[in-house]
């Protein structure tokens, strides 16, 4: 690093647009530098800051390793990427976009399963009848493991799903899912229902600071100024 504060932002899509707008509203004008579609940028009037545009799942990784000081990304991705999130990063505040709940959803026809505890008991009978564990399709393997362990649910197996997770139960690829939802409409359309105690995390885009990045007093001062623009402190 060149002694600058590294700020990692989403490189494309709706998240990038909302992020740029949120920063602009806070008085931070982001400009891309170098080649037209460059992945580098800066904040106008903040020479001590270097902006890196990367894919949103990578932002959590950069914060985890300390390769970025600050980043804008979803709390879901941060908590999925690191088991010890609160030791590695600080959440400086929600930005009011990218809202999504990470939820446990089962087929709505499972009249006998309303709560996580029902899931464990149902999985016993399932295993006896089908000779294997109930499968949970998800891309949130770590969040799922942690939440299920907390709820005392152990009789399951995770199958990794990288897209169209909500279709997995109907397609016979898994019995239930853990996925993000905003309005719940996609889940309903796929014949799924969220368990009564099935909300794992209410996530939104966050300004996140890495605790393990190389901080100097100068960079900490810049961070405090940026973060004050959002928290109004």
């Amino acid at each position, binding site marked *: 690093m060149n002694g600058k504060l590294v700020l990692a932002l989403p490189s494309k899509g709706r998240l990038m647009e909302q992020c740029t707008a949120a920063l602009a509203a806070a008085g931070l004008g982001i400009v891309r530098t170098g080649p037209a579609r460059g992945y580098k940028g800066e904040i106008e009037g903040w020479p001590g800051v270097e902006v890196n545009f990367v894919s949103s799942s990578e932002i959590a990784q950069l914060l985890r390793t300390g390769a970025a000081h600050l980043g804008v990304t979803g709390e879901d991705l941060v908590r999925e990427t690191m*088991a010890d999130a609160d030791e590695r990063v600080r959440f400086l505040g929600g930005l009011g976009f990218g809202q999504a709940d990470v939820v446990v959803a089962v*087929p*709505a*026809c*499972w*009249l*006998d399963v*309303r*709560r996580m*505890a*029902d899931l*464990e*008991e*149902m999985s*016993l*009978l*399932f295993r006896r*009848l*089908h000779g*294997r*564990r109930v499968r949970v399709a998800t891309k949130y*393997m*770590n969040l799922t*493991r942690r939440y*299920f*362990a907390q*709820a*005392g*649910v*152990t*009789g*399951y*197996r*995770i199958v990794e799903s990288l897209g169209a997770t909500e279709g997995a*139960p*109907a397609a*016979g690829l898994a*019995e239930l899912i853990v996925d993000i939802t905003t309005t719940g409409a996609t889940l309903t359309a796929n*014949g799924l229902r969220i368990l*009564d105690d099935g909300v794992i995390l209410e996530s939104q885009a966050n300004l996140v600071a890495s605790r393990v990045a190389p901080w100097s007093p100068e960079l900490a001062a810049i961070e405090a100024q940026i973060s004050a623009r959002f928290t109004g402190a």
Partner: protein
Amino acid sequence: MSTAATTADIEALEAQARGLMATFTRAGYERVEPAVIQPAALFLDVIGEELRARTYVFTDPDGAELCLRPDLTVPTCRLHLERHPAGDVPARYCYSAPAFRYQAAGADRAHPREFRQAGIESFAAADREADDAGVLALTVEALRRAGLGRIEIRIGDLGLFAALIEALPMPERWRARLKHQFWRPDAFRAELQRLTSADALARGLPHDLVGRLDPADPAGAEAAVLGHLDKTGCELIGTRTAAEIALRLVDAAADLREKPLRAETAALIESYVAVKAPARETRDGLARLARGQGVDLSAGLDAFQRRLDRIEAAGIGIAGAEFSAEFGRNLEYYTGFVFEVIAPALGPRSPVAGGGRYDGLLAEVGAPGPVPAVGASIHTERLLAALQDAGQEAAP
């Protein structure tokens, strides 16, 4: 923090392993070398998601899902079943081989990601208590011969919990539920509380449907479930059938017709789970606790005492060992006697050896029915560390 063992460490580990294996084979255990690479699906179905998260899983060029074994017990069960598909032929195996586990908090000397397990497994022996005692005694003998002086032993007995639940008045399916949830202390307490309250038992159910279900008529229940789904415009999707869903709702309907569990019964179960006592006081203490509620636990307690006597007879000072009723709660496949050996140099968080009875595992791996099984394994890196820390010399 280095995770790589030095050449001297590797040589010391190998010398130590030779000694452990000599003790095991002299006692009549056959040395086996189960495969390092195991089929992921079968293995992971047996060990559950928690150990799965620590298992190195990979896909080979054909697309087959494989794993590096996270322990030696399941591979040894598979090896036994290859030789004896019914599993019921008595056999004793020992091994000294690496196992692999991801260490989320980072690997260190007491928690390496590649570690050598030296262990023994005894299958299909007729006298369970004698076999339990034999496995513990041989484990301790092997540790002593390796040079480990002071040890502490912790024991538990999941069979006693099962015996207590059997002796208390409640429907069989409630017993099954409590035994199953025993492994998860919070969920266990929640279920126990739920069973004492009629309101809690009814919560969340589709009442108009459940009220009409007749436990004696499963076919009618399936039709009622299909009718209810149809009426509410809910499509039946996925792998579970209406009959499966009906089976569980019929159970719920039957639960509502039962008298909830008496508060005293729930309290007795709670106080049993909290028992911690020196091994020699366990039988009388538990008998008193049970008798206060008019419950006779003598069969289970006599077996417990017989096992202790056997262990004493083998020259292991077990009287002062700590018995904990909930010890074994974090090791799901155990079904009876469980134990851990602790070296004071490493402390209780890193036991040098542990084992117990797991009568259900062979059936899970493919045997047609339950097969008596008891085993133990020594964490050899920890043993070496304990010996080095204590500055003890290996016995000549």
